[in-house]
């Protein structure tokens, strides 16, 4: 491998996550600053409609005189909460079913789980999330639940493949030979070895959950009592035409910062966990 190629690989391996981390820290920094800044409550309306940028309203106000900075901050925490919650729950579900399926590969638990995975994946993704979120709309966590139900499948497939690969390895065969229970073998020996795949997939679920939430909220199917970037962007469709951009700009920039930073970090994790991408 030439020196320049090595240098490029080194660069992509270390610079991208650094940039991603930097943007993510910047994103959190903005949120923390807004959290301590004395802003009006995000629901509060005022006669001060479409106010420009000022100390009182750092990002101006919208058509109802609501503080855009306050709404953007609240929407950001809301997105982070959804991202983490869905990643955690869908991850747990996917890992559990993946471990079970991989361990019992070829037997009935595996058949059932694979069938379920196939069924879930056959349904158009956003349509299914939207339909579920709408059907369960009276339930405050409907959107999160809909995402968890749909997002676990890829994780389960990947973990299943890892388990099938790992369970033929000598250290697993040895563990089984000394009489370790399947549960102990899976959690103590197999699960830690799936960590690279798991981390990458978790961050991808995190991104997918945030994007899905923004799309659903944009379509008006979001949570009833929270503000979201999607809702801000949908409001801005009426405002941009009359030259009021702050709702759109603030929601879009924050959305971009979060998604782009996590994507960069995910890419890097993927590269590091792939042995074929190693530096020669």
């Amino acid at each position, binding site marked *: 491998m030439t020196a320049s190629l090595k240098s490029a690989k080194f660069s992509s391996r270390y610079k991208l996550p650094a940039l991603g981390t930097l943007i993510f820290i910047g994103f959190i920094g903005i949120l923390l600053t807004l959290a301590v800044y004395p802003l009006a*409550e995000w*629901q*509060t*309306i005022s*006669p001060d*409609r479409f106010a420009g940028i000022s100390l009182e309203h750092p990002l101006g106000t919208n*058509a*109802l005189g*609501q503080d855009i900075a306050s709404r953007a901050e609240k929407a950001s925490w809301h997105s982070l909460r959804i991202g983490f919650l869905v990643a955690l729950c869908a991850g747990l579900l996917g890992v559990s079913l993946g471990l079970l399926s991989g361990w019992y590969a070829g037997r009935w638990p595996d058949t059932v789980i694979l069938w379920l995975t196939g069924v879930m994946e056959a349904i158009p993704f956003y349509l299914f999330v939207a339909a579920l979120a*709408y059907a369960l*709309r*009276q339930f405050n966590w409907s959107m999160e639940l809909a995402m968890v139900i749909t997002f676990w499948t890829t994780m389960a497939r990947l973990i299943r493949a890892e388990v099938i690969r790992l369970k033929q390895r000598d250290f697993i065969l040895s563990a089984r030979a000394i009489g370790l229970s399947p549960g102990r073998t899976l959690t103590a020996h197999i699960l830690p070895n799936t960590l690279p795949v798991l981390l990458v997939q978790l961050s991808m679920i995190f991104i997918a959950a945030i994007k899905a939430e923004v799309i659903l909220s944009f*379509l*008006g*199917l979001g949570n*009833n*009592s929270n503000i979201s970037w999607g*809702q801000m962007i*949908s*409001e801005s*469709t*009426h405002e941009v*035409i*009359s030259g009021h951009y702050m709702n759109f700009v603030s929601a879009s920039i924050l959305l971009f910062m979060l998604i782009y930073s996590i994507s960069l970090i995910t890419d890097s994790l993927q590269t590091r966990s792939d042995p074929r991408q190693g530096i020669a």
Partner: protein
Amino acid sequence: MLPRTLCLIVLGTSLLWGCDKNADSEATTEVVFRHALEDSPISLDPAHAATVSAKFLAVNLYDTLYRYKYLARPYELVPNLATSLPQISTDGLEYTIQIQAGTYFQDDPVFINGSGREVTAADFIYSIKRQLDPQTRAQGAWLWVDNIAGLKAWSEAGADYRLPVSGLQAPSRYAIKITLNHANPYFTHSLAQGFAAIVPVEAISKWGREFSSRPVGSGPFQLASFNTSQAVLVRNKNYREDFFSLESEGGIQENHPRLASNNGQKLPLSDRIELLFIKDDVARWNALESDAVDSILAPATLLTQILTTDSEANTRFKLKPALTEKYELLAAREAGFVRINFNMDDANIGYSTDPERNQANLALRCAIRKSYNWKARNQIFSQGSGQVFAGIIPPIVYEFDPEFSPESIRHDPSGARELLRQHGWNADNLPMLTYGYSVSVTQNQMFEQFRGFLIEIGYPAEKIQARKFANFGDFLRALHENNLNTIPSGWEMDYPDASDTLQLYYGPNRTPGSNNANFNNPEYDRLFRKARYMPQSPERTTTLAQLNQIVTDACVTISGLARTRIFIWNKRANVIPDRAFTGGYFLRFATLNTAGNKPESP
């Protein structure tokens, strides 16, 4: 070989060119008018023509006995399928109506040989009976149930179509005789509603519930296709000989030179109507700008971008200079109003068996009403173009009282807080409010504004919940199931009389009827029954004012705002797309300007 191949190529090209030319020629001769509606109908069955879009389609696919004149203002009834206005007996109880012979339903497989049969008086009688048949679950029964003699009893006896209704008779094939329980000077208006559209029994027998999407009528158009995004109507070739006359429609040559050019032409004037259902304001405006539609109801949220700001105190509306080249505008005060009702069936906010709680709930409703800032609502969502008024009798009707106490529309947050305190309401014991709407950016913002007003008086934000519905039909279903306690409502009047809005709080009209507040006040009901059939008189005006006061005192609604509807159309279209009262009747008169679609100078 080469010459032969060349010949084939030339021949083939010529044939293709020929086909293309024919297609072009057909495309240019077919007049296609495109209009955007703000919502899609959930049913095309006239029995369910309760929404603007459903009524819009019903009156174009079906015939009604009467309709409103296209251009006459104030609105005037004119015979449609009837040959003349009804002959009314001196006691006002008997109506005799002749219908036009030689009117046929559209061709459809439900008829023998697929040929539309003639419309007769019996079809009208069947159509009205159907409204009272519990199996139809119709929404227009309230128009006739107390009016037509014997109809209620017929319905209650099991709605057997073989049995006659004493007040509905057909003395001959083309004559209808209606007997009323009491004289009603507004009765003829009910025969111009979408609910009164005439349907053939064969279609209902064959299609059953599917009839809601397979209309078979005798109107000027028939349905070519229908889905949630658009309906395409084509000329009903069986439509009777009906010709446009500007004068008969209440128009004046000098005011409507372009419409006058259609004088003497057979109706409908367009061959094909494309109705696009576009809910989003910006998308609707974009559809007009990109020539995807010819006319729209201008989105209220975009009025500042569309209208000049130098309109004199918002009483005259003008398009911005950049738009005047291409578009025309008509501003008309809404025939109806918007308000927010409280569901009186909900014991948390409405009627309670505990008298003390009843009083507390009354104070709560009044406090919420005091918190509401109509001026801000009008400014933000109608750019100040609407008219805020107190009570439930809107400015468009004769009985509107501009002197009615404005107390109920006064924004008074401190008074609201004091009222809550006096009746022991605090952040802990205030009930959960469920505010429902069909989802859109504007509706969402209206909810946020409502919540904002309540936060101002100390109502906890988490106790004001939005219930969003994917479409208006789902919202209506939730209303019918009594799942909401705070109900933003709009009412497009069916006929130009105050009784049409006062019936919105008449006890027997409770959900699933038009009284979605489920207001139930015996004194109100008694006065309403007394006043609704009285001719216009000082006594009637006094009674209507009493009714207005009862609803206002009960704080059953936060009312109201009569918006100004701005209709905008491309100058290539030759139409006045006003739909107040007239519903969608204007479609039969809509066409495009001739001479290469170039508009005449106004």
